[in-house]
């Protein structure tokens, strides 16, 4: 008997003495501790695509009278209501905790293995994603952001610093240029099918980088015209930007459940799909121009367009299956695509710059190229486009005063940006074009259309560097 007890005791003691191994089991089997660039890149790109294509897009489209809210948050946006409870997921999980931290990780991982191409793409996309954030929120954490434990409450950089640099802050222009320089360098490994924008075509990435420089310059063109002019001239003389629809900087989702673009899910699938439809104002705008893109852009399930006015608070049209919504031009069959930068966009930027800043080129030529690029992207043949130009000369020629011509450019750009509410709102705030009437039943802070997004409540609560700035305060580049 005692023997048995002795055996047990011995066993117990053995177990106790070898316990350093016994307890060394705390490595997670559920999540990797390190990953490779080819899995980081698509995750990060998808985050940027989500940021552009989801809630920020619904807000941008609604506040610029492209869409109208029928219920829930789009209905609130429609009457100018916006506060710190909005865009929480976008700020946190799509921008900072989603795409931006992943680009930052990608930069580090690819630097270690000498992949300059991954680094370059990460920098260009990082700059673009930061631009979405600063354009919506103004001053944001930038140079101190994304440092994790090193800085759990980063300070904000001003939007001016972010765009122009200075005080130790690298400008978005320089970040893109650094990325472009990476793309020119020898690289150990290069992206392929994991690059959900260009499938690993680095030449197109260079074009995208230069086009982003155009976009950034265009954004600051009123507050810092000299810098804008200088940046645009440099890109024009480099002549390596998106100048063809096939070079468009598009993120393509899939058509299967769980792989589809948020705008597709929101328009066609989710329980919230009846919260928003196309605005009567956008319909009227295109009808007024006899625009052949209307039936391509906007659905008409019953054969005629069913829309509501912005801010409308009466009984909604029934049934909701009759409503006019984003068409496949925007949603695809789930793929999107999400159009970050398009040929039409660069053409309109060059048209506006030539007109307003005097950069090289003929404004009308760029203007018409922009319209043609957009119509071609919508699927119209060159014959159809020519026919439209012939029948509607006033729509496609810059034959008015500078302001009138500016309005024409911006209005056509607005139409061509259909489905990209982020850029529509940016352009509208910067130029005031197209002229948009106030929405019905407007409330907001003071009855005016919001000109910035309010910092999310989580940042206010967690980071004392943030203070509440209401949506009626302009951002730096929005001078009037």
């Amino acid at each position, binding site marked *: 008997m005692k023997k048995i007890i002795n055996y*047990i005791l011995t066993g*117990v003691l053995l177990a106790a003495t070898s316990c350093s191994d016994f307890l060394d089991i705390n490595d997670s089997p559920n999540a990797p501790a390190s990953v490779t660039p080819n899995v980081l890149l698509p995750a990060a790109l998808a985050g940027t695509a989500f940021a552009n294509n989801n809630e920020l897009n619904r807000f941008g489209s609604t506040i610029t009278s492209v869409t109208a809210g029928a219920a829930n948050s789009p209905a609130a946006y429609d009457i100018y209501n916006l506060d710190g409870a909005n865009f929480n997921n976008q700020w946190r999980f799509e921008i900072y905790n989603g795409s931006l931290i*992943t680009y930052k990780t990608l930069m580090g991982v690819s630097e270690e293995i000498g992949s300059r191409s991954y680094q370059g793409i990460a920098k260009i996309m990082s700059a673009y994603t930061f631009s979405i954030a600063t354009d919506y929120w103004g001053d944001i954490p930038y140079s101190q952001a994304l*440092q*994790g434990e090193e800085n759990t409450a980063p300070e904000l950089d001003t939007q001016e610093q972010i765009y122009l640099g200075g005080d130790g802050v690298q400008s978005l222009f320089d970040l893109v240029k650094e990325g472009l320089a990476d793309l020119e360098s020898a690289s150990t490994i290069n992206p392929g099918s994991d690059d959900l924008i260009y499938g690993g075509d680095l030449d197109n990435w260079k074009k995208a980088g230069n086009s982003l420089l155009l976009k950034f310059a265009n954004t600051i063109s009123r507050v810092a015209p000299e810098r804008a002019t200088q940046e645009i001239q440099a890109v024009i003389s480099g002549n390596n930007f998106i100048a063809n629809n096939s070079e468009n900087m598009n993120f393509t989702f899939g058509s299967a459940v769980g792989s589809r673009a948020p705008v*597709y899910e*929101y328009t066609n699938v989710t*329980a919230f799909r009846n919260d928003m439809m196309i605005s009567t104002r956008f319909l009227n705008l295109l009808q007024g121009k006899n625009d052949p893109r209307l039936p391509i852009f906007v659905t008409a399930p019953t054969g005629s367009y069913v829309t509501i006015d912005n801010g409308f608070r009466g009984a909604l049209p029934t049934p909701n299956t009759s409503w006019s919504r984003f068409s496949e031009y925007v949603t695809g069959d789930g793929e999107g695509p999400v159009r970050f930068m398009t040929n039409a966009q660069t053409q309109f930027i060059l048209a506006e710059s030539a007109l307003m800043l005097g950069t090289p080129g003929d404004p009308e030529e760029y203007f018409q190229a922009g319209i043609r690029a957009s119509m071609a992207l919508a699927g119209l043949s060159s014959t159809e486009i020519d026919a439209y130009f012939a029948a509607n000369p006033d729509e496609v020629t810059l034959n008015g005063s500078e302001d009138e011509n500016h309005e024409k450019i911006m209005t056509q750009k607005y139409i061509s940006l259909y489905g990209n509410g982020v850029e529509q709102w940016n352009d509208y705030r910067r130029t005031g074009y197209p002229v948009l009437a106030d929405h019905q039943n407007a409330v907001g802070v003071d009855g005016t259309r919001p000109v910035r997004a309010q910092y999310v409540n989580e*940042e206010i*609560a967690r980071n004392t560097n943030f203070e509440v700035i209401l949506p009626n305060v302009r951002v730096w580049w929005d001078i009037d």
Partner: protein
Amino acid sequence: MKKVLLCLVLTIMTAYTVMAQSRTITGQVTSSDEPEGIPGASISIKGTTTGTVTDIDGRYSINVPGESGVLVFSFVGFETEEITVGNRTTIDVVLRQDVRVLSEVVVTAQNIERNEKSLGYTVQSVKGDVISQRSEPNVLNTLQGRVAGVNIGSASGSPGASTNINIRGITSFTGSNQPLIVVDGIIFSNNTDNTQNTLFGSQPGNRLNDIAPETIESINILKGPAASVLYGSRASAGAIIITTKSGSGMEGKTEVTITSSFNMQDPINYAPLQNNYGQGTTNNFVPTATTSWGPRFGTPGFNTVTNTQGETVPYQLYPNHFDLFFQQGTLLQNGVSIASGTADDNFILSINSTNQEGIIPETGFDRYNVQIGGNKKLQNGIDVGGSMTYVKSKQRSGTAGNGGSAMGQITRIPRSYDFGGTPFRNELGAPIYYNPPNTHPLWSTQNETFDSNIDRMFGNLTIGYDFADWLNVTYRVTADTYTDRRKQILRIGASRSPQGSLGDDMVFRSELNGDLLISMNKNDLFFVEGFNANMLLGQNINQRDFQNTRVVGDGLNIFGFDNVSNADVFTNSLETSSRRRLIGHYAQLNLDYKDYLFLELSGRVDQSSTLPANNNTYFYPSVALSFVPTDLFDLQSDILSQIKIKANAARVGRDADPYLLTSLFSQASYGNNLAQINFPLSVGGASVPGFFPQNRIGSMDLAPEFVTNYEVGAVFSLFDYRVELDVLYFNTLSTNQIFDVAISPSSGFDNRTTNIGEMVNQGIEATLRALVVESGQFTWESELNFTRIRNEVKSIAEGVENSTIPGNSFLGIAPSIAVGYPYGVIISTKNPRNDAGELLINPATGGFAPGVPGQVIANQQPDWIAGLSNTFRYRNFTLSTLFDARVGGELYSFGQVDLRSGGHIDYTGVDRHMPRILPGVIDNGDGTYRPNNIQIPAQTYFGSLGGLASEGAVFDATVYRLRELALNYNLPASLLNNTPFGQASIGVSARNLLFFAPGFPADPEVNTQGAGNIQGMDLSGPPQVRNYGVNLRFTL
């Protein structure tokens, strides 16, 4: 059973009966419990060894020498009675139950039986007879209202719904605050295993559901760290020691017990609804409106309307959609147990079944338990024992939660919607509803189901040996393992997944424990008489495994084919595994001086795999003192029987969850219920994997968290132990909490794991027990318990004023910890008020001024809870009642907001045409305010009272309740004499028969999030139920 046992005693005792000379006294010994007579009671002549025992009818006969003799009547469990014989020849005696004896022995940590008098901490014992046959299959629910210091709340009346239990408040920010459950020495998983989003998903049960109440002999609740310190980290939230029935008390006999009960369950419906207005908004009919703000019934032009499907339908009242949706539930429980043996050689075999059909169509709970166990002292002196239990259970529930679920829609049925008469599916099964893509609640119950299939084994094996009469060594191995095969079905058309989704979810848990226990005792230590000591040395080796593998098939093709091969996409599939180990060494020294002064010193060292290797060992001590001044100073009187003073101080450490030390990556996903993607993405026919950094930053500096507790109290026993008052105060300080502190999202991460914070619990517990009346065949026992706990979060992290409790919650309605507030407050948007506390009105709209986000709007913790149980016995009848009260505390309710802002509830139909004015004031702009005088329509008014994410959704959860009513009748022995039955009883019982909730239109005891740290939220969950039925028990 008792009778059988006593017959045995009788036979033995008779042999020793001494026959004396002189005259013979006869009589009968009875009690209020057993008016037919107590068999086996002993009668002795005081001062002699002469005695006898009563026969089967309680009758006796004894010869006494003279008239001066005194007869002593005694029986275990009863007070001893002394009667002077005098000149009588017949003496009948009614023995009184000894209340003191019943509560004397309790089971403490590591299943050590102790005399309650010696404890410097608090252990409350609940006997099996108040748990079994109570119309309630969940053991935890049967404890509601019975135990001071314990807060128990069930999630809903849905079959198998989980029940939350906290002993002495919340002590950990994020760790489990549920007590450790120990069943026959087996550490028993009571996990809820929420593998789905609790906001939308179905609610699995807590796994204590796997214990059949019929099998329980007793439950001992170890309150506070001092009581549970020997169990270590795991029991810092207290422990519940469940002892199941065994054959050890059978005195060699065999007993077969058969139990059966049948109960009905009625839903406790929502508030009454208005009957005058139908579907619509602003007095117009709108076919897709979820509200009843449409035209008044009978309005010209609204005799018929066109519904969402384009059909012309009558516009009229359909009054009873709740009645058409809910059904009467049934609960059938059956059991057989065979027990036999002696303390040294015994076995038990029991089989129990529970079959429940819920109040919501398609829901149910079935459970089958088989248990076998026994002990034997071998010839060589080795004690061996073991038991093994197999449980098979199946829970079927539906979807719940806001919006797209049966429960989310049932509060949004317009009063003119023909709930029972409108078809809700087409011939292919696809949903038809007034408000697509939502679905009819009956479509949901048929096509959105969640099954949980448990197969569980648990058991123990003990081997022990007495090396000397003062030294025992025992080794005990326990195992508890289960698999829960879950299946979530969302058929094509479900609003949560319009293209359909199937989830095959496998949850596996296993826990192994090896405990070495060396116990020693020595009396008259250091040659001091009455100075006794015993000491326990122990070692525990623990391993816990968890695995959850889930195959989720999305994008279904064939309606009704609920097999994942029917799906196109599997990107929501996942695997989560964890393993953790812990080695603990513990010691306890008990010193006892002359049975009036007791000192207990305990200590435990734990070494955990989940903490950093260089900082994974931590020690914690406990000291407990019990002092009985009445024994020392001999203060006993007719009034004062005993005073015991108890005091203790203890500290318990708690380790982290596994894998918190490092920052990791995870498969990327974006979005929420508006739009969502999950990697790998399927793009252009190719599968593209994607990973990104997790939102949490790990910490290699993590240390254990601690709970430090002080407790003082006293137990007063009065009137010959007929009244006992147990009062105590405790103060618990939780420090060094392991918490994921929210950080600035622009840091690139959302939170970081670290040790922070401080939280305090202060509480008063009181229990008053009394034998109120004992007169002849009638007794009345009463027990009142009272608990008042004040919990406060003292600090979180530097610069952090509040943080969300991990778990699922809606944005803007965050169950939180907030400095200066009790744990679990809800942070949301609050209506602004002026300095005088008056609500501010927006002069432009007449509504409340825009709300201020980030404010504490609700506190779910009650001010106090109390329970009052009464047991009345008359002859063979036993009537027991249990009232309880939960006063204060708030409930956040989506369903009630739906009914109010939707214009469904009765008072929204009263004078609806009259404009209303919200209570509040308007800012004059100069620091003064004028009363609000802006008239607004009824719809605006009730809408303004509060939408979902506002303080308007908060209700007072105070409730007074007749928790239980049970009447039991024991068939008299005379009736059973010629039957094979030793004992038979029949009873009726009811639970939740009546309640009064002044601040809430329904039963406020609901919590959609189930057992866990998030409480006080009714996010469109199933309601509570009322149970009533009959039960039978007989023994062979």
